């Protein structure tokens, strides 16, 4: 009996092993390999072998103006993109919730459609919209005599990226917020209406408090995603003009795959990871305290 019991503790591995091997090889191993790499100086194209340098890569990052610039650009993107994304997603979700049941899924699909576009297609499309000479937006503005340097001016480039991001990424948070709204019983609103509460009051007193867990989830996820912004910048501005839209991930990408400085790129990746962990931690704390 005991031996059979002991044996059964391992039959589970028959089921779990294929996944566990892949998980170990392609998630755990790269994670720790990356940490090790970050302690080495390794220029992949040079004949010199990798050399242990301790925390020198992190020290280099600390004095690297390009790193600080990319970090600043990334944070600017998060601050500019997150609030309107979440705000608009909430507004659309509220609209969908109130929409007639028959047409709700139709509208929902329409708002979600951009989210399933691949970034190269979405990027090519918006690059054409934004083109100052023969772009669609300036063609529409031409009759008014206005010509906007959407992606060629340092001041306009980042807001343009944010606008495109809003269109491309609103679907996910919208869907999660809609699910959250649908979990709030309609009877709460009916009771509030009978007591004479106006729609605005109902929103602040019923919707927001009950939606807070979902809202927290969506905000954290959005910030984590935004910190990793890469595709739209790579496709639309290539980080320009004057590096004004080059974000951390693009800097890591260029360090690793244009300059082949693998150790330094691994160190920068870990700094990005720490930044993301820090963000999530702070947000959970802030939202919990409220």
């Amino acid at each position, binding site marked *: 009996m005991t031996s059979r019991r002991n044996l*059964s*503790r391992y039959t*589970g*591995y*028959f*089921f*779990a092993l*294929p*996944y566990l091997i*892949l998980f170990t*090889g*392609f*998630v*755990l191993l790269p994670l720790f*390999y*990356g940490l090790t790499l970050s302690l080495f100086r390794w220029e992949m194209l040079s004949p010199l072998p990798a050399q242990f340098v301790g925390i020198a890569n992190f020290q280099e990052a600390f004095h690297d103006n390009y790193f600080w610039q990319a970090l600043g650009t990334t944070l600017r993107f998060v601050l500019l993109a997150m609030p309107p994304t979440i705000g608009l997603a909430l507004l659309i979700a509220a*609209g*969908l919730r*109130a*929409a007639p*049941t028959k*047409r709700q*899924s139709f509208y*929902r*699909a*329409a*708002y*979600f459609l*951009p989210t*399933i576009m*691949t*970034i*190269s*297609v979405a*990027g*090519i*499309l*918006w690059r*054409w919209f934004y083109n100052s000479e023969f772009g669609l937006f300036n063609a529409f503005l031409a009759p008014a005599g206005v010509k906007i340097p959407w992606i060629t001016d340092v001041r306009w480039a980042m807001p343009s990226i944010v606008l495109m991001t809003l269109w491309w*990424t609103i*679907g*996910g*948070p919208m869907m*999660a917020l*809609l*699910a959250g709204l649908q979990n709030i019983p*309609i009877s709460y609103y*009916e009771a509030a209406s009978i007591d004479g509460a106006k729609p605005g009051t109902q929103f602040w007193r019923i919707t927001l408090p009950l939606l807070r867990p979902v809202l927290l989830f*969506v905000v954290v*996820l959005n910030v984590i*995603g935004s910190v*990793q912004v890469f595709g739209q910048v790579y496709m639309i501005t290539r980080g320009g003009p004057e590096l004004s839209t080059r974000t951390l991930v693009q800097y*890591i990408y260029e360090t*690793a*795959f244009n300059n082949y400085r*693998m150790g330094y790129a691994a160190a920068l*990746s870990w700094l*990005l*990871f720490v930044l993301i962990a820090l963000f*999530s931690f702070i947000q959970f704390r802030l939202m919990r305290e409220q």
Partner: protein
Amino acid sequence: MRLRRNQPSNQGMGLAGETMLALGAALFVLPIVLIAITAFKPDAEIVHFKSVLPQTATTGNFKEILGNPEEIPIFRWFLNSVLVSSAVALLVVTVSSMAAYAFARLDLAGKRWIFPLIIGTLMVPGQVLLVPAYLILNRLGWLDTPLALIIPAGGGAFGFFLLHQFFLGIPKDLEEAAELDGCSRWRIFWNVVLPLSRPALASLAIFTFVGSWNDFLGPLVFLDSVDKYTLPVGVALFQTSYYAEYGLTMAAAALCTLPVVVAFLFFQRFITQSVALTGLKD
């Protein structure tokens, strides 16, 4: 009061409200419709915008794209994308469902510390793994092959977590009855648990397929040869090689988008379900 209960999602939106909602929806879809329309325009009409609809519609862009398999192997890219995305979806669903079942139901030595380890990696952004994964794939000799895009995807924690939670929600009675009838663990999994989990498996498969179909950074970093490209990186080539030829670019973009839009409209319910479960999109 009683009557309104039957339509819980309708709080009585006015005509003005619904008009706003519909206008917004049109605004979101319009750019995608524009790809399709513009793909039928000659270059001159794209560069000098006169009207939304083409004045002289042409299929020339599509002919040129589809007719130059040497220069523009778009059909090849399409096949590569189909192969990679299907393989990824199949692999993820297979290995994740088996492991999730083991962790949800079976006695597993070391389960208590392996489970949080897996779930913890949900927090790790893919970019952190990019450089070391590239070096590991290089060591394995898998760079510039479809394997580089397929095999690592099987280790992701998302599908495992989704199915684990789903299996926990299935009542144990059915499995216990099958066990009393002398079914093996494998038969219980195959004949009882999996059929009950069809919606969750379908959601995960479609969601994984679309994610892999749209993946850009992976193929950009791991592939070199143009004929091994998937559609997204292939289409991105147009921005550098065919810089000024907007008609060609739009036709390629339309061909790349069409399958995803069709799949989405067909499987909308499954996709939106899994997004609502996770709320994710980065």
